[in-house]
């Protein structure tokens, strides 16, 4: 139970992220929510690959048989972070355009759906 506290942090981040996406009415805040959600998932990936007392999987200056944490989750997280940056850039540029069209970022001021 106590050993799983890092996972609870993951769950906390994901819940905060989802809450922000679902309940906030400002587009920038929604994007922040997505970023928090993404951090939660990234943290989860990293956490999965950790072994107690292990070092980073790098052999420079370390002996061959040191206990090392898993390299694959770290590589996946790297990929996921870069993807996150890409998505963030696209979302922000779309938001800039929405602001140009409506002069506001509040959900209720934008468009309204025509069916």
């Amino acid at each position, binding site marked *: 139970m106590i050993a799983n506290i890092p996972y609870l942090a993951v769950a906390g981040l994901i819940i905060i992220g989802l809450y922000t996406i679902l309940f906030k009415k400002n587009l920038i805040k929604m994007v922040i929510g997505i970023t928090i959600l993404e951090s939660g998932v990234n943290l989860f990936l990293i956490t999965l690959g950790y072994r107690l007392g292990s070092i980073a999987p*790098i052999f420079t200056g370390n002996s061959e048989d040191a206990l090392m944490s898993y390299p694959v989750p770290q590589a996946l997280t790297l990929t996921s972070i870069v993807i996150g940056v890409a998505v963030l850039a696209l979302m922000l*540029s779309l938001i800039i355009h929405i602001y140009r069209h409506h002069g506001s970022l509040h959900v209720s001021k934008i468009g309204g759906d025509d069916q």
Partner: protein
Amino acid sequence: MKGMSTIVKTIANISFPIITIYGLYIIAHGHLTPGGGFQGGAIVASGLALIAVAHGSSWIESKIKEHDLSLFESLGALAFIGLAFFGIIFGGVFFSNFLVDTSMLFGNIPVGGAADINTGGTLPLMNFAVGLKVIVGLFAIVLVMALATHKKEDSS
């Protein structure tokens, strides 16, 4: 966006080469120490963003066009996928690490955890290709967004 004060510009000018060299170090040693093309590229791109903020995006725009940036980005991406394609020709499969353990310039596989800067085969080369791509790509994003918001301020 207008440039900032002389103090900021000077400090930015001084720190920019240091940041760039640090970033390039991270890229070049990606296969030996923590780091790699993405991380180092992000560092250099942040240095460029610092210059853009200090001097103002219009100043940057007079120096370099977004058009040329996307050219360099394409080149980085082409170098990366090109290395992967060479894997088909020399290594028999897409993405094969065909340069590793070929002696000569790229050395042989070290025994006992003492890989050196030249032993990674295609890894360092790919790091450089990705590094170029990330530097130019992230800087292009920052520049385009800065210019876009800047034009908006002018028109309103």
